[in-house]
């Protein structure tokens, strides 16, 4: 894969014909790898972030279902026994294009949270965490891009108190946009998202919400017309299924709920299947 991306890069990246006002592609996207804390602790949660800055009016793609484009990909170079991932993708926003195309994209800033697994027997001391990042950034046109990112970090002893890194703020911002699991419903509390399945559609009801949007993952069963159904003002969203297609019905993706100020938006991970008996308000 690296060779082919290099081919694209050689063909397109960084080469500007005379008379063009387009910014060189290396300025369109900048990415860096940062750590939440200065110390990596074996056996504890260690979070890194891939922090992208994107030229205005250009966008990167989400890792879910899009009609076009490709999300950024990463090849990690890690010390022995370390693991990176799975990446936490924040809620994107919808981009509807002429011809009935629907993509889900990020503009201006994209922060991907990356859990780093540090083996219990990792020696204390400095380590280098690195990745090769590749992406497609688009505006009216698309350009490929790539960069090597790395961070020099320190593995500390298991009991070490941690000090926040310089970029602690971007972690809390990213977590606010990260999908959360739906709370388990209880007999007395149906939870913030109620859903009911009727012939060929699922209706989501989020009491108090002022605007709802649904972004399907690649595992979501086919939907009839998400351009029309995927976003609505108010507290209800009715999403029609594409019943021409066989296969199990599954509404899988992200539900993005905005509320009246000052209430913050809620981002939930949905993985809903119709339960026996039809309507259900559970999760």
């Amino acid at each position, binding site marked *: 894969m690296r060779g082919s991306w290099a*081919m694209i890069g050689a063909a397109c990246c960084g080469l500007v014909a005379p008379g063009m006002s387009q910014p060189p592609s290396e300025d369109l996207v900048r990415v860096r790898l940062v750590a939440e804390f200065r110390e990596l602790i074996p056996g504890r949660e260690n979070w890194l972030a891939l922090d992208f800055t994107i030229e205005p009016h250009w966008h990167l793609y989400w890792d879910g279902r899009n009609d076009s484009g*490709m999300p950024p990909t990463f090849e990690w170079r890690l010390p022995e026994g370390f693991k990176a991932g799975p990446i936490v993708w924040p809620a994107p926003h919808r981009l509807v294009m002429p*011809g*009935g195309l629907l993509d889900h994209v990020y503009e201006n800033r994209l922060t991907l949270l990356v859990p780093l697994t540090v083996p219990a027997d990792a020696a204390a001391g400095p380590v280098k965490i690195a990745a090769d990042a590749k992406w497609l950034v688009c505006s009216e046109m698309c350009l490929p891009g790539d960069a090597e990112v790395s961070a020099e970090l320190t593995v500390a002893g298991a009991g070490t108190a941690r000090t926040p890194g310089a970029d602690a703020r971007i972690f809390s911002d990213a977590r606010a946009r990260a999908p959360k699991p739906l709370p388990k419903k209880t007999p007395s509390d149906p939870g913030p998202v109620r859903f009911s399945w009727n012939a060929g559609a699922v209706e989501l009801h989020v009491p108090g919400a002022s605007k709802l949007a649904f972004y399907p993952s690649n595992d979501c069963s086919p939907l009839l017309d998400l351009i029309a159904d995927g976003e609505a003002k108010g507290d209800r969203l009715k999403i029609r299924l594409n019943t021409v297609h066989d296969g199990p019905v599954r509404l899988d993706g992200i539900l993005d709920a905005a509320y009246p100020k000052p209430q913050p938006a809620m981002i939930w991970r949905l993985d809903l299947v119709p339960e026996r008996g039809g309507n259900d308000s559970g999760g």
Partner: protein
Amino acid sequence: MKIGRRNVLGLVGACVAAMCFSSGALAQTDKPGKSEDKQGKLAKIGEAAPAFELTDTDGKAVKLADYKGKVVVLEWFNPGCPVVVMHYGADTMNKTIAQFKDKPVVWLRINSGAPGKQGAGKEANANAKKEWNITTPILLDETGKVGRNYGAKTTPHCFVINQDGVLVYAGAIDDGNGGAVGKTNYVAEAVTATLNGETVAKAETKPYGCSVKYGS
């Protein structure tokens, strides 16, 4: 076949210089029901492929009906799209065409980019035809009508039509993801099955690539 860096640059340069940058249709929602109406015209597997007549980069009129009795492959094309560039650098399409050299198979490229969009227009596509050794017509669909009738979403997006004019495959050229050439060439498989009078096993796959640059 290697693509000269300068040649592709010239293509990209010509494309980009010709276009005006706009912020695009961000966060607009289509009118309710509008895309349903369009879906009513959409090509469907197992049904007659929508007829069309378009002009190629040499100014010649080309009709789908001209090729009745042959297997027709339509490839949505944009010489400025990095994913298309990747495939042409690897010669994916020409290699596939060569597989069926002595068979009644026709391969047409269609560019549904609107005037001013990346890779659109006669000049950019005529240049690509030359630079990339394309010997079959590149058809210009600048109103986007044919693209919309087929539901073409990406470049590349491929459709295979059998000898009776029925659509038998729609989707990606292969099982790659756009970053590299895939292992399984779905179009080659669909054409082979169709030539043998067999049903195409994988009739529909998800296409990948840059969005087709329709006008608003």
